[in-house]
């Protein structure tokens, strides 16, 4: 009996961990929780609606992934897609970044091998959250490398819920960025590790990481091929490579030569030759056209006013607008305070790794200021630097808390004898005050971080979890009303039109029509051919007689428009119409933007320009709308998205007929009537 309690207490003692093991347990459990948190915070739309692909671009990625699973890699690489950009077609193999699709198919194959019978769509939907969780792990290791493990943990937590990252990696957003940010952070981490340890294995790993990032992301180059020696944007990388070769060659020669004067002469000659050769090569390349100049997208990062004046397509994309302060606040919250503080700590303790992260942070923040979409690229740097600030501040405070009466000893070593006793007394008095102050500040830090978490969850739930293809609104009694018009229209196309029908719409909807409607489109989101898009824009902004010529020349069977006048949906084609005019007018000067405006103002009511009231887009959107009662107390034909009564209610279509309008009038499809048998009779009509 006496041995029982002894063995029980022995048993308990064997479970009690040493401090190091306790610390490891805490760290591992925090990382596990952060991993799970990063995954589940991105699942709002899957829980609210269903597991579907969001937005526009992911539909193209999904379609190519489907093709890859069905046909294998070689057919995928050599795929010529005849269902988009009719009649030009598109060489898919050479114009996309296969990293994302290959990754998704790899995960799919592994799951299938383990006998989980998943559909490829589920894998596609959940790829981005999975990679976001992996990013938090990489952020932890990166933070550990730059500062210490505490900073790594904070970095992992911050990046798990940061809205700037969530916006492009939510479940259903099957796009390159979801995978590419993981690849980017991994490459940078492995690079810094290689710089710190000097080992060849890590540098090789960073090369592979870079290869993966290049294969997954269109964010910085368009095609992989000979771009690395040909495009203007890569010249800087080539220059650095060349300089490094010269540097190491000189180092080696210095090692071989013992005479310093001779080496100085050699150094002068070599540097002059190297610079001259490099300059001549660059000059020849640019003049002969072998090295292409910077593309518009990247030139506009350096000169932000360029796109506005020269390339309307780039300027029209809402993600390419410059950033206002509220977008920063929305996506970063308190990280905006912690970022400059973190920079201060990095400047205090300068090392290779901190210099690297400071440069990454500053350049990415500048580019994020130029283009809203690039906030995503700045997010890992901002999270890491903010984590350094949090970790350093908390460490300072806890050191203050933990300091016992050792302070008295250090107080006595400095100062003369007279002030010794007074300083001792002061320190004794201030001790509890300092400790209370430190506790209060720790609570303050905890409060700020909890507000950050609340903000991030709210933003994720309200702003970044909408699938864009399914619209939601609050009904009259506060209940949620779902508009599934897009999918209704696409499935109508799929089931009620001939297989070889061609659909003309604005380029936004191209990917969705091909993926869900399974029909050929004229232009889609790839926007690689500006003239083709301008042709469609011209057709939409001309009178019906001129437009039908263009429509017939493109062999179009159906025209699709998006109209928000009944529901108040503001991202419809009438609001995008001026961009159609600008892009069409950029190529065909017969379309002039002032024709559609009244005193510089864009109107659709009675005071609108006559060309606006009779163009094809107006007619297709407002056909039969003049009889429609949309809101209580307003006249028929009241456009709820523009807030006015439309000007031309009596719309008659001559060459097109209405084929389908969805239940909330959001998508409207028109069939192109075949030409009259005896058309020449109409031309020579009497009277």
């Amino acid at each position, binding site marked *: 009996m006496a041995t029982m309690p002894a063995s029980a207490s022995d048993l308990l003692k064997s479970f009690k961990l040493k401090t190091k093991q306790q610390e490891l347990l805490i760290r591992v459990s925090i990382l596990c929780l952060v991993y799970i948190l990063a995954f589940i915070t991105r699942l709002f739309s899957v829980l609210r609606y269903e597991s579907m692909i969001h937005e526009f671009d992911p539909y193209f990625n999904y379609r190519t992934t489907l093709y890859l699973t069905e046909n294998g890699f070689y057919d995928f690489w050599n795929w010529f897609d005849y269902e988009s950009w009719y009649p030009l077609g598109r060489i898919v193999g050479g114009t996309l970044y296969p990293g994302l699709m290959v990754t998704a198919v790899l995960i799919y194959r592994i799951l299938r091998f383990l006998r989980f019978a998943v559909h490829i769509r589920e894998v596609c939907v959940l790829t981005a959250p999975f990679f976001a969780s992996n990013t938090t792990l990489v952020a932890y290791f990166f933070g550990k490398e730059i500062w210490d493990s505490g900073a790594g943990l904070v970095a992992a937590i911050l990046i798990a819920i940061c809205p700037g990252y969530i916006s492009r990696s939510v479940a259903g957003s099957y796009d390159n960025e979801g995978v590419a940010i993981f690849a980017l952070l991994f490459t940078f981490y492995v690079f810094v590790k290689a710089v710190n340890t000097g080992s060849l294995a890590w540098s090789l790993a960073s090369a592979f990481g870079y290869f993966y990032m290049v294969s997954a992301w269109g964010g910085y180059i368009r095609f992989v091929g000979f771009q690395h020696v040909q495009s203007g944007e890569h010249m800087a990388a080539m220059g650095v490579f060349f300089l490094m070769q010269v540097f190491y060659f000189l180092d080696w020669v210095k090692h071989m030569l013992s005479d310093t004067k001779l080496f100085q002469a050699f150094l002068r000659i070599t540097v002059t030759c190297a610079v001259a050769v490099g300059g001549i090569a660059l000059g020849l390349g640019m003049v002969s056209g072998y090295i292409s100049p910077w593309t518009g997208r990247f030139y506009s990062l350096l000169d932000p*006013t360029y796109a506005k004046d020269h390339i309307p397509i780039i300027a029209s994309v809402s993600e390419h*607008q410059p950033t206002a302060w509220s977008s920063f*606040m929305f996506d970063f919250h308190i990280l905006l*305070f912690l970022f400059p503080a973190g920079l201060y700590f990095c400047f205090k303790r300068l090392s290779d790794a901190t210099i690297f992260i400071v440069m990454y942070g500053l350049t990415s923040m500048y580019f994020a200021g130029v283009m809203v979409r690039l906030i995503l690229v700045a997010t890992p740097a901002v999270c890491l630097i903010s984590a350094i600030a949090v970790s350093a501040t908390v460490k300072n405070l806890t050191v203050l808390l933990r300091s016992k009466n050792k302070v008295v000893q250090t107080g006595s070593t400095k100062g003369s004898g007279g002030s010794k006793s007074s300083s001792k007394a002061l320190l004794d008095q201030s001790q509890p005050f300092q400790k209370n102050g430190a506790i209060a500040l720790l609570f303050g830090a905890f409060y700020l971080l909890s507000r950050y978490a609340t903000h991030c969850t709210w933003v994720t739930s309200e702003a970044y979890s909408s699938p864009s293809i399914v619209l939601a609104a609050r009904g009259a009694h506060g209940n949620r009303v779902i508009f599934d018009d897009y999918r209704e229209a696409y499935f109508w196309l799929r089931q009620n039109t001939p297989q070889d029908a061609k659909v003309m719409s604005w380029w936004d909807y191209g990917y969705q029509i091909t993926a869900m409607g399974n029909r050929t489109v004229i232009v889609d989101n790839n926007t690689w051919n500006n003239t083709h898009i301008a042709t469609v824009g011209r057709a939409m902004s001309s009178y019906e007689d001129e437009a039908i010529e263009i429509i017939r020349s493109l062999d179009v069977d159906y025209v699709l428009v998006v109209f928000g006048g009944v529901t108040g949906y503001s991202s419809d084609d009438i609001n995008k119409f001026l961009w159609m005019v600008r892009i069409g007018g950029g190529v065909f000067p017969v379309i002039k933007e002032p024709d559609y405006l009244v005193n510089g103002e864009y109107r659709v009511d009675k005071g609108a320009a006559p060309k606006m009231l009779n163009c094809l887009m107006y007619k297709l959107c407002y056909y039969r709308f003049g009889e429609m009662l949309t809101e209580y107390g307003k006249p028929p034909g009241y456009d709820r998205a523009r807030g006015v009564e439309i000007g031309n209610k009596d719309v008659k279509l001559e060459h097109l007929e209405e084929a389908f309008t969805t239940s909330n009038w959001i998508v409207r499809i028109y069939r192109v009537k075949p030409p009259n048998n005896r058309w020449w009779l109409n031309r020579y009509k009497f009277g």
Partner: protein
Amino acid sequence: MAPKADSQSAGAVAAADASSQFSMDPVFHILKVVPYSFLRPPRLRLKIPSVSLPSAMTVFSLVLLTYFMVVSGFVYDVIVEPPGIGSTQDPATGAVRPVVFLPGRVNGQYIIEGLSSGFMFVLGGIGIVLLDLALDKNRARSVKVSYAIAGISSVVIAYVMTTLFIRIKIPGYLR
């Protein structure tokens, strides 16, 4: 200067040059004859000014300035050219009232609201920096206390103002 003395001293200089350095450079020989046979170059002691790298804290303050400009939406101001402050007409009285925050969109601003928000962010950052300076051991106690009070008040003011701004700008914030 008498030309005779000039040519004499120039000749002496030229002779000295010729004896010390034999040059194959034709331009040098032409220059020796054309202006410098009768012009005497002044004897100056010129040194290339030495440029020393700035200290880390100088760079940090420059970085803070650029951060302020980026975060207050400077690029947005340059491209979109919004007005400094907006205005709306009161429907009842017809008087024109100023509107500080651009309503309705997350990614839009007037110039003044951008600058004031950017200032608040930088203030919060500086507050945390002051807190760290306050916890540094090698300062007089009064300085440490004043830094601590300044730091805490900066962070609190910055956080409160920023939350207030975002609540005004986005009416449905956190509801």
